[in-house]
């Protein structure tokens, strides 16, 4: 395949292939995407399809390039090469809420929306994430979880065909994270965007996603559907088996899969609270 600058804009996307709205066509289509930093290929040819309404989690060790792929799909990395087609309406939630501190919460959610209904729609989105009544608050007065919910509202109010989540709960405490998981699951069920969730939390991936990918050495080394019921429990045998497989793929040893060490601590808390 010839190497071209990633064609990410909506108009280019239509020229390059079928639109996402066509039945059967994937919402996201990635072919041969490469990204090098100082001669090192962080992404060495990625092929990926995401169906409309599908929730895909992308796992990888830190520095594996999973956020790089997300940024390419968000149109934030013009130096990547290859082909990528995304819906013309997409939205990003970053690890930090990234609310403009000088704009009130409602104005942050409505940022970039045009038309008369924009503020009303933003208010409705805020209510949907449980922040009704905070419209006139300054972002600095919100807690970490509230700010991230506002960021989620800002993404949802755009009715995105693709929702890009870049470790959106990574900076939250364990209890807030559980609430955010539930909220995100409900919101995605209602709005049915295609979702790419970048995370390093294996349990989060299994709890939320329809399909889990693992990025290793610049390639998707594992692509596995999550065949679990809607209501997922960490105590399930299937859950544990998938978790063990994913952790092995990520190169984590057995000792750590028992949940005794630092990064898995949050999972222990999750089990207790759910």
């Amino acid at each position, binding site marked *: 395949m010839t190497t071209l600058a990633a064609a990410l804009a909506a108009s280019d996307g239509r020229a390059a292939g079928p639109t996402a709205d066509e039945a059967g066509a994937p919402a996201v289509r990635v072919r041969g995407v490469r990204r090098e930093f100082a001669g090192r290929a962080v992404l060495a040819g990625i092929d990926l399809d995401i169906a409309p309404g599908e929730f895909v989690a992308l796992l990888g060790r830190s520095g594996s390039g999973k956020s790089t792929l997300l940024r390419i799909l968000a*149109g934030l990395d013009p130096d990547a090469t290859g082909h990528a087609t995304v819906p013309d309406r997409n939205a990003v939630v970053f690890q930090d809420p990234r609310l403009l501190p000088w704009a009130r919460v409602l104005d942050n959610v409505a*940022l*970039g929306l045009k038309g008369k209904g924009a503020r009303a729609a933003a208010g409705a989105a805020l209510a949907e994430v449980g922040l009704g009544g905070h419209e006139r608050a*300054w972002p*600095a007065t919100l807690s970490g979880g509230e700010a991230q919910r506002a960021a989620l509202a800002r993404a949802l109010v755009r009715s995105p065909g693709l929702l890009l989540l870049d470790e959106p709960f990574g900076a939250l405490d364990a209890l807030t994270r559980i609430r955010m998981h539930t909220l995100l699951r409900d919101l995605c069920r209602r709005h049915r965007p295609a979702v790419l969730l970048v995370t390093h939390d294996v349990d989060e991936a299994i709890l939320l996603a329809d399909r889990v990918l693992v990025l290793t050495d610049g390639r998707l080394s594992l692509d596995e559907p999550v065949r679990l019921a809607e209501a997922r429990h960490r105590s399930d045998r299937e859950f544990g088996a998938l978790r063990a497989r994913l952790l092995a793929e990520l190169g984590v040893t057995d000792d750590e899969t028992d949940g005794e060490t630092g990064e898995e601590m949050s999972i222990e808390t999750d089990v207790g609270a759910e």
Partner: protein
Amino acid sequence: MTTAVFDGQGAGAVLDGSGGPAAPGAQAAPGTQPHRAGKPGRAAPGGGPAGRVEIALADPDRPARRPVPRGLRRLLGPVLLVALWQVGSSAGLIDSSVLAGPWTVLHTGYDLAADGTLHENLLVSLRRVALGLVLGVGAAVVLAVVAGLFRLGEDLVDAPVQILRAVPILGLVPLAILWFGIGEQVKIFLVALGTAFPVYINTFAAIRGVDARFMELARTVRLSRAAVIRRVVLPGALPGFLVGLRFALTVSWLVLVVSEQINASSGIGYLMDQARTFGQTDVIVVGLAVYGLLGLLSDALVRLLERHALAWRRGLEAT
């Protein structure tokens, strides 16, 4: 457990670690109540195992000392200074041709205000500063936005400005007189020039300092270029602009003082220069006081502006 204990007698810190012989000055006082802070703290073994130290905590029954308000305390120095000045003048230690006494100054100030002289000249000075500020700050903001947002703008604007900035503004006075004569224009020009630099430099730096993550966000929500400037760049640069504005106000009074004393037929500086020829130190001090008050007032004005414009920083509701 090793803890430093101060015995209050100046014997220094005592290490009480190994349960060794009691250190001098650190009397053992079993069963004593916690001591209030400030009283000599004592090591209290309390009958426990060796190496324990009681921490001196405040006594809840101690009557609370009512502190003198800080503002009042801060007034002490200035009041004392003015009192000394008055005493010196009254006693003839300070000659009135060197410095008029505070009471005389007050009296003169009242007279100048009563016959309208002060009022008239104050308005002239205020007008010069206001016009100069509007022109200087306006030009500076436009230049800073152009240089801050466009690469070409930076190349064209920033380098010349940085070079010109090295020239002391007051060194331009002779040239300015040749250009504008000795009328109002030269004073307004000098104020405008003097205020433009601090505003430009701070605003330019602030625009460049706007968080790149917000620019990235603007791209993901597809803000137009105009909207990026209006919603992200300008509000983000506002704190820096206000810092520049405060500097600019200080500079504006400085430039005004000098230009009014060099050649003027009105204004506070003219009043003071006139007084010099007649040796009226009281009028000069009145002029100085007026300048000082104007400086304070303009600074307070910018602070008020900051409180409202930057309410989001403190997370307060600005309504």
